[in-house]
C-alpha cells in the first residue's frame, strides 16, 4: 500500500534520528521492500542513531505521540536558504538543490517541525517568484534548444514548462497550416521496409 501511494514521490533519503530503540518496538530496522532492494542498513537501532531512510518509510514510522523518530531538515529548507529564497528566488538553481524541491517540501510538513509555517510560506513565495520566468521562457522559445532554460528548474516547474511549450507548439503548427498535414510515422520510416519493386530491380 505504501509503495503504491508513494509511487510519485521519489526514494529521497531523509535524515532521521531514532529516539527509541526500534528493537524495543518489535520491528526490524532493516529489510527488503517489494522489489527486493535493501531499504536501510542493518544496524542495531539504538537510541540516538542518525540514519538515512527513504521518505515513505520515515513517514510510515513517524508518530507524534510515541516519538519514534525525529527528522532533520535538509539544508535547502533551513533558515539560511530561506533567506536566500526570500531575497531573490529566480537566481537559485532549483534542480541542483534537489529536483523535487516543492514536492519534498510539502511532504516534510508532515513531520511537525516547529518551522513548518515558515517552510510552507517560503515554498509558496518561491513558486510565485519563479512563475514569471517560467512562463516567459516557455511561451517564447519556439523551435529552439531549451536545455539551457530548463536546467535550473525543479521538476514541478519543468512539467509546467512542458505544458506551456506544447500550447505554443500546437498554435505555431496550426498557424503554419501543418496541423492537418499528414506525415509518415517515424516508426515506418525507421523500419526501412524493402519494397518489392526495389527487390526486383
Amino acid at each position, binding site marked *: 500500500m505504501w509503495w503504491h*501511494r*508513494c509511487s*510519485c*514521490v521519489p526514494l529521497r533519503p531523509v535524515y532521521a534520528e531514532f529516539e527509541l530503540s526500534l528493537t524495543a518496538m518489535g520491528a526490524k530496522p532493516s529489510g527488503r521492500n517489494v522489489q527486493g532492494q535493501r531499504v536501510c542498513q542493518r544496524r542495531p537501532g539504538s537510541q540516538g542513531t542518525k540514519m538515512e531512510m527513504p521518505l515513505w518509510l520515515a513517514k510510515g514510522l513517524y508518530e507524534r505521540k510515541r516519538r519514534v523518530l525525529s527528522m532533520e531538515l535538509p539544508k535547502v529548507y533551513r533558515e539560511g536558504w530561506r533567506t536566500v529564497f526570500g531575497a531573490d528566488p529566480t537566481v537559485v538553481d532549483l534542480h541542483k538543490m534537489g529536483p523535487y524541491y*516543492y*514536492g519534498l*517540501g*510539502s*511532504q*516534510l*510538513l*508532515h513531520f511537525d517541525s516547529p518551522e*513548518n*509555517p515558515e517552510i*510552507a*510560506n517560503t*515554498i*509558496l513565495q518561491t*513558486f*510565485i517568484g519563479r*512563475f*514569471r520566468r517560467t*512562463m*516567459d521562457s*516557455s*511561451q517564447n522559445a519556439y523551435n529552439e534548444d531549451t536545455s539551457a532554460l530548463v536546467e535550473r528548474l525543479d521538476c*514541478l516547474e519543468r*512539467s*509546467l514548462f512542458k*505544458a*506551456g511549450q*506544447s*500550447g*505554443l507548439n*500546437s*498554435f505555431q*503548427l*496550426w*498557424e503554419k*497550416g501543418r*496541423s*492537418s498535414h499528414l506525415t509518415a510515422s517515424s516508426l515506418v520510416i525507421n523500419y526501412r521496409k524493402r519494397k518489392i519493386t526495389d527487390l526486383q530491380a
Partner: protein
Amino acid sequence: MDPAEVEFLAEKEMVKIIPNFSLDKIYLIGGDLGPFNPGLPVEVPVWLALNLKQRQKCRIVPPEWMDTDKLEEIREQERKLDTFTPIPSLYYMELTKLLLNHSADNIPKADEIRTLVKDIWDTRVAKLRLSADSFISQQEAHAQLDNLTLMEINTTRSFLLDSLNYMYKLRSNLQPGRSQDY
C-alpha cells in the same frame, strides 16, 4: 483543445460571397442557405465559402473589419489600453488565416492585413500573460477578463490551469495539520 478544433468552430461564422452559379435554396440541418444567383451577394458559413472558392465557383467578399485602416485603429487602441479592446469578430485570428490563405486575391492589401492582425494578436497575448502573472503573484481567487477570444484562451489554458493547481496545493500546505500527497 486543439487549435484545429477552434478553427473548426470559427468556420461557422457567416461571410458574404458572390457566386457565379445558380442554385435554389438548400435546406441544411444547421439552417437554410441561398438561393444562389450569379453576381448577387449571399451570406454563407465560412466552410462553404472556402469550399466554393476552391472549386472556383465564387468570389469571397472580405468582412468589413478586414480593412487596413480599421485594423490600424484597433491596433493603436489595443496598445494604449491596459484592458482588452472589443474586437469586431470573436474569431479574427482564424478568419484571417483561412481567408488569406485561400482567397488572398479577393482581399486588397493582404500582407498588410496579415501583419496588422499579427501585431494585434501579439499585444493581446502579452497583456494576457501580464494579467496571469499578476493573478498568481497576488494570489487572487477570481479574475475577470473581458473581450478575450477562444484562440487566445486556448494557447494559455493548459499552462495557467496547471500552475493554478500547483499553487492551490502549495497554499493548502499553509493550513496547519495538512500536507498534500502528490
